[in-house]
């Protein structure tokens, strides 16, 4: 019964602190399963996270782990990767962490195409501070700072990543666990900036505020509203209601990653080997 992925968890730190039914645990397992699938060396893989519910994942994962400051995971990860290109660097972030306070770092990480795999746990809300609206809270949905429904227009983080220059962009959900694992695997394989949005349920803050039912009900909502990209592309516009969203690989391209380009520069000018 012992699962091979358990070796990637710090057993003495479990159970984790997330609320009953929180989707973060599902995504954390998908990440380690993708790491296992891609055969990454545990000693040579670094997990970097920001601040927020999702970012607490780093503490449970048995690698070198770096729990940074709010919004700053991508700059820290950029430094780690450039300083030691042998390291596989995976970033765990949340919708507030990545697209609000860390938004500028996010788009510039994409632009530089640093070889990072960034997994955004999208729970549509600031969970750790008790349920405030984030830049990915859908318009009209409630939060403690949007008691009458959010007036803001949300980001589509996948569109943003692609437009900013990320070379791999995908989305999945906590319901579609195997699909999610595949999406993360693809990101790890891509040499460059990979972005995976993982839609997760926050039953405590977001779900409760918006009467979305139990954790299982929230997962069922993902099942019923996520549409595989191939089907989405063929779907008539009138069926693309505000609840529906596409999942799958949106972008898988190649462009020289920043670290490789810089190593090339060092060679070109005859610099010492780093």
């Amino acid at each position, binding site marked *: 019964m012992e699962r091979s992925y358990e070796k990637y968890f710090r057993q003495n730190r479990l159970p984790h602190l997330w609320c009953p039914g929180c989707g973060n645990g599902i995504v954390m397992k998908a990440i380690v399963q993708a790491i296992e699938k891609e055969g990454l060396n545990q*000693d040579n893989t670094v997990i970097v996270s920001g601040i927020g519910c999702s970012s607490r994942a780093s503490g449970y994962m048995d690698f*070198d782990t*770096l729990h940074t*400051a709010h919004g700053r995971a991508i700059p820290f990860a950029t*430094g780690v*990767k450039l300083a*030691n290109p042998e390291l596989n660097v995976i970033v765990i972030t949340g919708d507030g962490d990545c697209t609000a306070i860390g938004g500028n*770092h996010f788009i510039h990480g994409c632009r530089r195409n640093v070889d990072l795999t960034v997994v955004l746990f999208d729970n549509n809300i600031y969970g750790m501070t008790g349920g405030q609206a984030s830049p990915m809270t859908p318009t009209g949905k409630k939060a403690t700072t949007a008691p009458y429904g959010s007036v803001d227009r949300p980001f589509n983080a996948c569109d943003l990543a692609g437009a900013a220059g990320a070379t791999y962009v995908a989305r999945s959900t906590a319901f579609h666990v195997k699909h999610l694992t595949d999406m993360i695997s693809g990101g790890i394989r891509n040499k460059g900036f990979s972005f995976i949005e993982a839609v997760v349920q926050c039953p405590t803050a977001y779900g409760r505020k918006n009467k979305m039912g139990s954790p299982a009900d929230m997962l069922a909502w993902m099942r019923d509203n996520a549409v595989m990209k191939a089907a989405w592309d063929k779907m008539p516009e009138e069926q693309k209601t505000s609840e529906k969203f596409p999942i799958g690989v949106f972008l898988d391209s190649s462009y020289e990653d920043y670290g490789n380009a810089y190593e090339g520069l060092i060679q070109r000018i005859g610099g010492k080997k780093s």
Partner: protein
Amino acid sequence: MSKARLMQGNEACAEGAIAAGVRFFAGYPITPSTEIAETMAKLLPQYGGKFIQMEDEIGSMGAILGASLAGLKSMDATSGPGFSLKQELIGYAACAEIPCVLVNVQRVGPSTGQPTAPSQADVMQVRWGTHGDHPMIALAPWSVRETYDATVMAVNYSERFRTPVILLMDEIIGHLREKVELPDSVEVYERRKPKKTRAEGYEPYEPDEDLVPNVADFGKGYHIHVTGLLHDATGFPVGSPKVTEESIRRLHEKIARAGDEIIHTEEYFMEDAEYAVVAFGGTARTAYEAVRNAREAGKKVGLLRLMTIWPFADKVIEQLAAKVKGILVAELNYGQVVHEVRRAAQGKCLVELCGKYNMKSFEPKEIEAAIDEMCARRDA
């Protein structure tokens, strides 16, 4: 062939960093520190190191902390507005004990202030800018040559104490050009390494006898956890009063214990001095001139130059205050170091400010006049 070179303070800083083993620099352009980034962008790849221009000042600070954890000696340089933005991550580096050097080439503030004009008004921000209790090391060179040495020293201290070190320059020194001769080699402190294996119960934040921990670099198989939450020896956060108190105390104690060794001051014309001028950085050059002129005029005045600004030279000032009738603190601001001098002098002598904050550096005659006024007041 003479090895003498004409060099700017900012360039000397970059060269000192390379000599001290800095192999990663992240920066963001800002006057009057930009030449440091420009020089690093040119030099680092020649040495196999890496330079990256980040999207903002916070990003560059984050990048050097990540690079340091991955094993490279790392540095960043900025000025007032950028220094303000970096404050949170300076505290992160202090809390998570990540070696790094941050250069602040001071300019006139507050806010955008006067970007090209000299100032020394960030002394207190250096010490207290980031939130929470934390120690600080800050060095303020007064010449191009000393900027080179101070940068090496800053890198060594940051590695030895695993703490952020601020090189507190000012525009006068940053943009000053002097003929310098640089040494062929410098003494470099190599980062300490884990003394135990994981099997032997290695804990990344278990301190050595000098209270500094042997945190492993990433990628060495130790699977360490680094966080800005207060943590115990394991590196993991603990919400206990005991751990919180012990952590905060150790952070301070590791620097305090080494205090005498890292507090550098210099005295000039002090032997029979009845009055003293205290100054640092670019202002100390003018103060030196002023004191020399005063001596030539037969006045018993000396100069105490602070090279280490933080930790503050309390003992040196206390001894000085017991010896002289009055201390004049000359600084390019509305009064910052003067408060520290007053505190350390403990009322043993008169302490007065000679402050200036109008974009101009001091002229010797201004400090001379201030010395005369202080003497007249004290002797009256």
